């Protein structure tokens, strides 16, 4: 076959999806979350794989585990914090093991490009004694996922494939392979393996430890550890680098004359390989993002070389070429990298600083930030506009609406994790009676199905009197409009039940349930005011489909009557990006305006008009 045809430029997530196809995966599940979302989106293009968005990561993992027990290869994907939600099945899956191969793909987000924390999920692998593979580019993402399924079946264990944002969302060249032929595995009832009562759990824990010993041997395999040995007279001999994942790329580019051990398996660590690599070297530099995960374990090996990592590299955020360069400069000219060994990366060459850097700060000091905003026509905006007016404490949640924390709405008081707001609001009210009637919780529809139902039950059961607002825009908007149980469609596009959040409130016995269109600003204010004052638990569902999913009638956009406008600025403080200031006058950007008309109600001067009304007036 023509090799050129088989090389594609793929993001890591696309490569993982391709690998799932090639590895013969039958069932794939996920809950969307940046930077992992595109894995399942791309898998859904392969008709040979059943795939589904689950309500949350825990359920997704359980469905995948069931598929594995039934004999199929199964994959479950999630972002790093998703593994917190799925930690319960994850920890015990390590005991039960698998039938068909089971791989958990987990995408960490150092620097928190789109996350609430930057936890280092490598510790989960160590915690659960689950083998972990870490690719350093898209090709390895494909290769390692396939290897992960082999390991899973060979050792009867789930396997964690850990990526980071720069692996998930970077494009690099990938050589595609063929779909492999798998022998069918049958379902065999095996209570001692899958029923984790204490007596069987004890048996499995022992087996787990035996498996761990075998995996430790296996981790020395040449395919899972790559050594880069530079050639030429500039080769540094006293230092060796141990690294993995995207950190390898920074190390390889900057420390191009230093030997590098790239670990593709980072749990368990290949101790013999590491010892062999370190032999005779004065310094082993560990280059890894976030926690000193490799560093601490390698230090415990008691090698003769000095082990250093976090004394040179930060323990937060992402690494990059500049950081690696700075460390190179620190070592350059010391006994570890002598001047002649520095070679091409001499002190001046390595980190060129633009001549202008000195005055750059001054020149750029007034460059305005450009924070992400709620879209024009976003149905969430009016809710936060009213809540701000009502001076409510708003316990928020995870989704587009988290953006309401930013100016000009400044509406959120809290955002902790998926589903947290409802419980937090109850805690506030119980702790401080003065807050009664002043605290609301706000949660999106997808987030409600993910983890809002149990805290709703907790509220009614424990006699909460707060106001729970469900922002129902009929989609999982933040991650790119994935379907969920409230949409009426499955991932494959089939019709299914269309669940509404108010059904659950009703079933739980909430007496005060109201559904309101958030585009109707006056009614929305009336409803929220009444329900906030009520001394009983209320649920208000604000339902309006995401503005990005609705067709816009451009004949119906808003316009401003300049004669009536006294430039009071109320509309600007509403925060819609379609309302702009042009040559000193407020104006509507017709490209952005969706014609939602909420601003017409926001304006107290009658200057904000529907466009067609203006025509009538003339």
């Amino acid at each position, binding site marked *: 076959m023509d090799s050129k045809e088989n*090389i594609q*430029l793929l*993001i890591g997530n696309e490569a993982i999806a391709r690998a799932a196809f090639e590895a013969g995966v039958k069932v794939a599940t996920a809950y969307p979350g*940046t*930077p992992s*979302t*595109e894995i399942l989106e791309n898998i859904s293009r392969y008709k040979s794989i059943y795939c589904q968005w689950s309500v949350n990561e825990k359920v997704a993992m359980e469905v995948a585990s069931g598929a594995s027990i039934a004999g199929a290869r199964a994959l479950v994907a999630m972002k790093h914090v998703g593994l917190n939600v799925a930690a319960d099945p994850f920890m015990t899956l390590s005991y039960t093991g698998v039938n068909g191969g089971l791989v958990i793909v987990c995408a960490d987000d150092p620097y928190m*490009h*789109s996350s609430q924390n930057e936890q280092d999920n490598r510790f989960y692998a160590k915690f659960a004694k689950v083998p972990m593979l870490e690719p350093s*580019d898209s090709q390895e993402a494909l290769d390692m996922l396939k290897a992960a399924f082999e390991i899973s079946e060979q050792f009867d264990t789930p396997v964690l494939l850990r990526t980071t944002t*720069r692996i998930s*969302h*970077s*494009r*690099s*060249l990938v050589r595609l392979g063929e779909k492999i032929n798998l022998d069918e595995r049958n379902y065999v009832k095996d209570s001692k393996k899958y029923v984790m009562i204490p007596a069987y759990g004890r048996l499995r824990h022992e087996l787990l430890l035996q498996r761990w010993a075998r995996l430790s041997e296996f981790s020395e395999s040449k395919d899972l550890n790559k050594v880069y040995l530079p050639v030429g007279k500039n080769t540094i001999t006293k230092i060796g680098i141990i690294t993995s994942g*995207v950190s390898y*790329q*920074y190390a*390889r*580019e900057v420390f191009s004359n230093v030997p590098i051990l790239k670990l593709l398996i980072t749990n368990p660590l290949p101790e013999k390989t590491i010892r062999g690599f370190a032999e005779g070297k004065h310094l082993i530099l560990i280059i890894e993002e976030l926690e000193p995960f490799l560093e601490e374990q390698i230090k415990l090996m008691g090698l003769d070389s000095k082990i250093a990592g976090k004394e040179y590299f930060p323990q937060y955020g992402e690494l*990059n*070429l*500049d950081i690696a*360069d700075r460390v190179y400069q620190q070592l350059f000219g010391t006994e570890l990298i002598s001047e002649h060994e520095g070679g091409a990366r001499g002190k001046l060459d390595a980190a*060129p600083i*633009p*001549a*202008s*850097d000195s*005055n*750059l700060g001054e*020149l*750029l000091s*007034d*460059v*305005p*930030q*450009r*924070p*992400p*905003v*709620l*879209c024009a026509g976003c149905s969430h905006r009016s809710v936060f506009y009213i809540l701000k007016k009502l001076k409510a404490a708003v316990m928020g949640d995870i989704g*587009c609406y988290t*953006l309401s924390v930013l*100016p*000009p709405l400044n509406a959120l008081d809290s955002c902790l994790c998926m589903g947290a707001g409802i419980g937090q609001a109850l805690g506030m009210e119980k702790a401080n009676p003065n807050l009664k009637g002043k605290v609301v919780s706000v949660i999106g529809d997808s987030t409600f199905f993910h983890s809002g139902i149990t805290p709703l039950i907790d509220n009614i059961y424990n006699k909460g009197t707060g106001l729970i607002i469900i922002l129902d825009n009929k989609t999982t908007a*933040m*991650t*790119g409009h994935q379907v969920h149980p409230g949409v009426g469609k499955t991932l494959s596009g089939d019709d299914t039940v269309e669940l509404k959040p108010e059904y659950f409130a009703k079933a739980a016995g909430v007496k005060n349930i109201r559904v309101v269109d958030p585009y109707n600003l006056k009614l929305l204010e009336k409803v929220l005011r009444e329900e906030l004052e009520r001394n009983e638990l209320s649920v208000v569902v604000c339902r309006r489909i995401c503005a990005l999913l609705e067709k816009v009638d451009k004949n119906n956009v808003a316009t401003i009557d300049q004669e009536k406008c006294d430039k009071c*600025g109320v509309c*600007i*403080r509403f*925060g819609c*990006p379609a*309302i*702009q*200031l042009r040559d000193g006058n407020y104006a509507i950007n017709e490209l952005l305006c969706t014609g939602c008309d909420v601003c017409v109600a926001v304006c107290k001067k009658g200057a904000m008009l529907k466009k067609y009304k203006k025509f009538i007036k003339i």
Partner: protein
Amino acid sequence: MKKYDNKNNKNNNNYAKSSMYLEKWEEDLKKGQILSVLFTGVGGQGIILATTVLAKAAQESGFDVKVSEVHGMAQRGGSVEGSVRIGKEVFSPIINRADFIIAVEKLEALRYIGKLQPGGFLLVNDYEIYPSTVFSKDTEYPKNIEERISNLTKNYMIIDAVEIALKLNEIRAANMVLLGAFSNFLPLKPDCWNSAIKENVPSKALNINIEAFNLGKNL
């Protein structure tokens, strides 16, 4: 901000500038150096498409290539960047210093100018998108962006790509105008661009994108 009004001079200057860079990079890429391009702009301006087309063109020209994209949060009207690295063998997918910066919005040119490698080149779209904080009068959109840029580097070019795209009745093709102008700086195979565009835009928008690219290329 109409520094390039004089059309005749402009053509010659642009050609001289771009051919100098093209020759330099033809040599440097052979030596194994990695060429880093940074695209900046505002969510919705077609940054991801521009990076993808450039990357594909580089791949077709026989180079290794890596692209870094921004997904998720940044797409909600925020400041967006994407980068492409081209070479015999590319390692890091992200850049720290850019040999070229293509700013699809003017303020973003200023925001990212500190990433420009000494001797690197900056291509700016003469187009302003005000951040929300400017409308609420909490901040001001800087008036003298070109002056500030020229204080930092002489290697820049400002193109009214939106005006050119509007001739085709498609403001969204401004990114292709810029990419066309930028293509003159790069030692890639001449026929790689059309196929790269073809592979990445929907068929009904193909002609307009190729036209926009050519208008930019022949500026």
